[in-house]
């Protein structure tokens, strides 16, 4: 794979006791193909493990996935943990964030209040998250697009 020299590192993981691995595997592939450096922490990742990895890899973004409906409790105090570890990164969360996601705007507000920069539902395409991250990190499409199909 041709890596883009301007690429940023993204730390990725499923928070809490959640063991849903398929989504995060797809995300890892999508962000790698889009030219990002991806550190995939896998399932059942604690808040502290996210923070440690973000510091160790100087991450530009921390992407949190949750599919089993307990995201809100798993993310309580997460941004404080990141701040204390000195992490300065964009934070995204996505997945099935609430049981019975009838009003997603309410869910979005909940997680923005917890400190996340962006909140996605489970129907979001990886491309949408990638475009958002390019925006937030000030990258142009051409910075990364060369890499998308070279694997």
């Amino acid at each position: 794979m041709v890596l883009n020299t301007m690429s940023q590192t993204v730390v990725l993981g499923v928070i809490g006791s959640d063991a849903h691995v398929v989504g995060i595997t797809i995300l890892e592939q999508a962000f790698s193909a889009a030219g990002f450096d991806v550190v995939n922490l896998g399932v059942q990742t604690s808040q502290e493990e996210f923070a440690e990895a973000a510091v160790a890899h100087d991450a530009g973004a921390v992407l949190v996935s949750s599919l089993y409906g307990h995201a809100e409790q798993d993310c309580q105090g997460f941004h404080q943990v990141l701040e204390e570890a000195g992490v300065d990164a964009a934070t995204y969360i996505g997945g099935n964030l609430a049981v019975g996601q009838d009003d997603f705007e309410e869910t979005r507000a909940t997680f923005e209040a917890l400190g996340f920069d962006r909140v996605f539902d489970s129907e979001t395409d990886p491309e949408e998250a990638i475009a958002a991250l390019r925006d937030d990190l000030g990258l142009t499409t051409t910075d990364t697009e060369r890499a998308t199909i070279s694997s």
Partner: protein
Amino acid sequence: MIRDERIPSDELRRIDEEIRSDWPTGADVDFEEAIAYHESLPERKRFADVLESADKPLLQPRAGVPRLDDQIELLEYLHGEGKADLLPTTIDSYTRDNEYEKAQQGLEKARETGDDTLNGFPAVNHGVEGCRELIEAIDAPIEVRHGTPDARLLAAITFAGGFQSFEGGPISYNIPYTKRHGLEETIERWQFVDRLAGAYTQRGVRINREPFGPLTGTLVPPSIAIAIGIVEGQLAATQGVRSITLGYGQVGNVVQDVAALNALRDLANEYLPDEVVVTTVFHEWMGGFPPDEARANGVISLGGMTAAIAQPDKVITKSPQEFQGVPTMQANAAGLRTTRQVIDMAIEQNIGIDGIVEEQDLIERETRCLMDAIFTHGDGDVVQGTIKAFDSGALDVPFAPSDSAKGAILPARDDDGRVRIFEWADLEMDDDIKEIHKARLSQRADTEGREQSFRMVADDVDAISDGKLIGRP
């Protein structure tokens, strides 16, 4: 260093006593008394005999609730209204994590409130006596189904409690189920479970053992499932198990599914010792289901059709409410009857389909590559070979949450909807086989006018729940 060797009798006894002290109900287990109990059971409750002597695929659902009387009612319903041939008892999550105290609290709350506060039947907490009440109440064989990395106490209690079949294995209940349990650890734990089943077997009580074939349930290439099933069968046979049911989860392409079940049967008989009676189990689609009972019935029926052609010994059925989680007992029985109707209409037709032999040959060649890799990695020892092959990535499972597998390979469907490998990572496989997969995936890419990429993988994961087999753009 742990190896594929039978646990000596004194060691068996030592571990048995140790693990039985983990929870008070362990004290009630008495091996000699349990043998006598099993001998008292009528023939129609002897799992291995019923399964091995069947002349058509037997159907078995999934089902488990916390309270004993509810579990009896549930299984009676599935037997009576669903016409299930074999019954399950699915164990709750706390028990799977060996959290018997939490399971106890859940059970007590269930008894107080009548709610299903646990997602299964806490057999350890019900103890030998509770298990036996269940066995006595139900007029069919019952299997323990769970997902427990360390199932030693569960096995000791349920075997003594009269269950004669036990699902799981050191790889299949580790890699897809848990993140941090090491393979060496789970192999050691399951050697005890198999050794205990072997001890019963030696005394004439053949405990049936069933490795969990579907693994991560998501586009698992058949050869990987078969290789892991054979390894778990070998480990069980070493410990004295003589009735082994190897499993395979439907991928949805009929040719590949029939070929895989044929290959599973043939290779298992080849690789496992002659004294083992091998049977096969086919799991109806384990991936995401359509959020619509009508469409879900179509998915279930395709499974029934496949079973009618391949004729496995057992089929684990799904319910039309699969999408929403645990089904009602009515929906569970409906899945059984839909499957039964399709099988009974189609099985006497002796349908033969084109391309089975070629696909079976490919699957067998792939499986042999993996088995050779395990043999080589372990210098002939299957335990060491398995641990090292997973460690090197020579053996791998797609979408595996466990740290014990790399989880680096990626599957995708070809233009006929057969599962191929798109990203091989370090999986050990002959180059000519890799070329076949590549050519098939390239054919699909041409059809779709797009490059081969992870997008195909992502699209395929969602395809059946979206109403198709292949995730076309």
